[in-house]
């Protein structure tokens, strides 16, 4: 017997009631569990994934009540301390990735687990002033051998790793423009071709915006020609010091699926020792590596412990060649290859350096200068021009 229309209707009503009723029950349980868990778990102060302090319970004040900041502070406190925060975040990342999104906060999620940042758009005026300052500076010191290296970011070299039809700014032509703007007194180190020909190797981190020691090494071999370094019998042995590095691109995109390895290099075939002096920390160290930094979130700071206004390296090379490097953090993993070839290496990071640079050149009896920047920094930088102009 076929069910009558009335029986059918009754069944539909029953189905609706039970469907909606079950959802109400499940959601009630979720809300209750969330309430209890949020209540009993102690507040966290720091998120490793986001590398920032988490909002804490705001204190009531009449002023914050009146201007409404109390409410927004409480909302951020509530969401920052929401249970399983990291898990929700990866659920969101996964859902969006599955539906086809490949760009998260200006970071492309590419092939082979590569995260690739978008190249920076130059600040034309600032860049012009920087190039001009570099030229004038090199002209004041004709006896010092000056060279320059501008390193492209990973997306510009590993374009085949970009997802689908992603479009990025052509940073290589930005670099060409910089090189064309530099005068004859600065020797140009063309690292683009050197990096391109090794694009299939691990020359950039997957999860960080820096190059790896392998990438820096390829650039170093190119630089050696231009800077008059005779490699002779010197070789390098690479050691893996970490397999758990998740860098800036990982934090920015929210993609924490992959971890990088960090390698460091030791020269072989030559017996040169050195000492590193950090004037800002009033500290000395027998190594350019700071292994404690591998316990920190930003493991790239294993090189020199991060950026400092000035770092001095005194070596036993004893060849009267004293090198001054104006640099950003890309240089931090580059210097490990230079130690056998200079008596003294001085790193100046203009973003934190406020002294007169001509005095430094005299004090350290500088014979060689290297500008080593990532294109992403240099095209927007104003600090280098400011520092160089102190000498003029």
């Amino acid at each position, binding site marked *: 017997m076929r069910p009558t229309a009335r029986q059918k209707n009754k069944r*539909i009503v029953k*189905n609706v009631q039970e469907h909606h009723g079950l959802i109400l029950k499940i959601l009630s349980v979720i809300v209750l569990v969330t309430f209890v868990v949020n209540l009993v778990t102690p507040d966290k102060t720091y998120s490793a994934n986001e590398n920032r302090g988490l909002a804490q319970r705001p204190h009531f004040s009449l002023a914050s009540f009146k201007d*409404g900041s109390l409410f927004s502070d409480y909302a951020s406190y509530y969401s920052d301390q929401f249970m399983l925060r990291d898990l*929700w975040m990866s659920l969101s990342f996964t*859902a969006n990735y599955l539906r086809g999104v490949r760009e998260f906060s200006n970071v492309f999620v590419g092939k082979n687990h590569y995260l690739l940042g978008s190249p920076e758009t130059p600040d034309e005026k600032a860049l012009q002033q920087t190039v001009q300052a570099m030229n004038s500076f090199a002209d004041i010191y004709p006896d010092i051998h000056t060279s320059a290296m501008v390193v492209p970011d990973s997306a510009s070299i590993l374009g085949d790793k970009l997802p689908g039809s992603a479009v990025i700014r052509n940073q290589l032509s930005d670099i060409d423009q910089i090189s064309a703007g530099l005068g004859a007194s600065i020797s140009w180190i063309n690292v683009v071709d050197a990096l391109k020909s090794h694009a299939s190797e691990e020359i950039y981190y997957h999860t960080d*915006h820096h190059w790896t020691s392998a990438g820096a090494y390829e650039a170093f071999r190119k630089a050696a020609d231009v800077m008059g370094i005779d490699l002779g019998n010197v070789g390098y042995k690479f050691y893996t010091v970490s397999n758990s590095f998740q860098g800036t691109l990982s934090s920015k995109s929210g993609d924490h699926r992959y971890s990088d390895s960090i390698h460091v290099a030791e020269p072989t075939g030559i017996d040169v020792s050195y000492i590193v002096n950090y004037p800002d920390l009033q500290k000395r160290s027998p190594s350019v590596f700071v292994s404690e930094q591998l316990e920190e979130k930003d493991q790239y700071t294993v090189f020199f412990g991060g*950026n400092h206004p000035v770092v001095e390296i005194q070596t036993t090379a004893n060849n009267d060649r004293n090198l001054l490097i104006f640099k950003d953090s890309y240089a931090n993993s580059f210097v490990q290859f230079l130690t056998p070839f200079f008596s003294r290496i001085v790193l100046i990071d203009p973003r934190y350096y406020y002294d007169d640079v001509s005095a430094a050149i005299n004090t350290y009896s500088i014979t060689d200068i290297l500008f080593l920047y990532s294109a992403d920094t240099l095209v927007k930088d104003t600090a280098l021009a400011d520092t160089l102009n102190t000498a003029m």
Partner: protein
Amino acid sequence: MTFSSLLFLFLFMPVFLLLYHLVPGRVKMPVLLVLSFVFYAWGSPRNLILLVLSILFNYAAGLQIDAFIQMGRESMVRISTILTVAVDLAVLCFFKYVTGTLPIGISFYTFSVLSYIFDVYRENARAETSPLYMAVYVAFFPKVISGPIVRFCDFQEQLDNLRFSRSDLLVGLNMFLQGLFKKILIADTLGKAFGNVTSLSTMAGGTAWLGMIFYSLQLYFDFSGYSDMAIGLSRMMGFRFDKNFNYPYLSANISEFWRRWHISLGAWFRNYVYIPMGGNRCSSLMQARNLLTVWVLTGIWHGSTLNFLVWGLYHGFFVLLEKFVIKDRLEAVPVIVRILITDFLAFIGWVFFFSPSLGGAIHYLGQMVCMDGIGFWNQTTSFILKENLLLLIAAVLLCTPFVKNMHDHLAFRRGGVFRAVSVGIYVLLFFLCVAELVSATYTSFLYFKF
């Protein structure tokens, strides 16, 4: 506070529903009012002062008008009504067109109090003697910020006959959840896609078209999702309000579009402006005047810049065209074609709506016809389309009743395993909403300097 926030979903809403349903009947309205004030004041307590002043002023004015009606002093009735409306509109216009910083929800709650004054004036409703009920009508938290604009006479009727059953709670929750999914999973993600388009300094024609489509769909899912949540919340307390959207992108002409888009606003203008002016029971010329008045008002209600006026007139133009020129001459055209034409016109209209200025809108329309000089299609267009293709397909499908009918057929008519799967999908979608809300606050602190 907004419905689509962790605080609302996990604290305010559960606490409110528990309180509302646990307290005895006569305490329900005070609870509703207090929590409505909390909801409204959340974030900017100062705005609450204006809301309360507006409630008190209109409460007193309503009683006064009613008193004059009882006394039969018609001219005083008229004068006091005009004065009250003038004050309400002056306050709204002051914030909208002079200061430029709008107290949240003022466009909506001003239309609520005006509805009250008009209904009392026209004796469609009793003047409210209880300040509590008056306040509940205006500050009712599901609708105070973004509508729907419920007419006072309808609200009063609901209040008089408020009954609540378990099935109201269940049906309301279901509507609320569907609205939440529309808002967070569809509208907000479309919003990101639209943001990606507008952040481009130059764009190919196709990219601009995609942007317009993203925005048009976003606006629909955002607003209708919010309305569904509001209506669902009201239903959970026993209030039944009409739907605010009825698949507007399936309309075959612009007049029909406006009977299916933001229905409560259209009804407000029809009841309180168009019909009192004579509606369509007058000469064609007067009808055209009435229609144009409504469209100018609709335009400037949405925003204070010139582009909103143009947008209102743009729609008014097509409504007039349909009414007086086209009439039923397009009946022979297949309905799908007429729907596509209507959507095309509505979408172009949204360009005026989302642009910051009239010049901005014209610039954007220029970009749609490749005025940026980089052709109609480039790699960026492909990338944006590819990233959002699934979302776009889902959004277009959800503009029709297809998914809902399919779901209801399977889950309720067939039942069994389909019903269980549907429950699973609801829970999964709820989890995805929470994930989006949590990750919206994801900010990696870019400590690492290069």
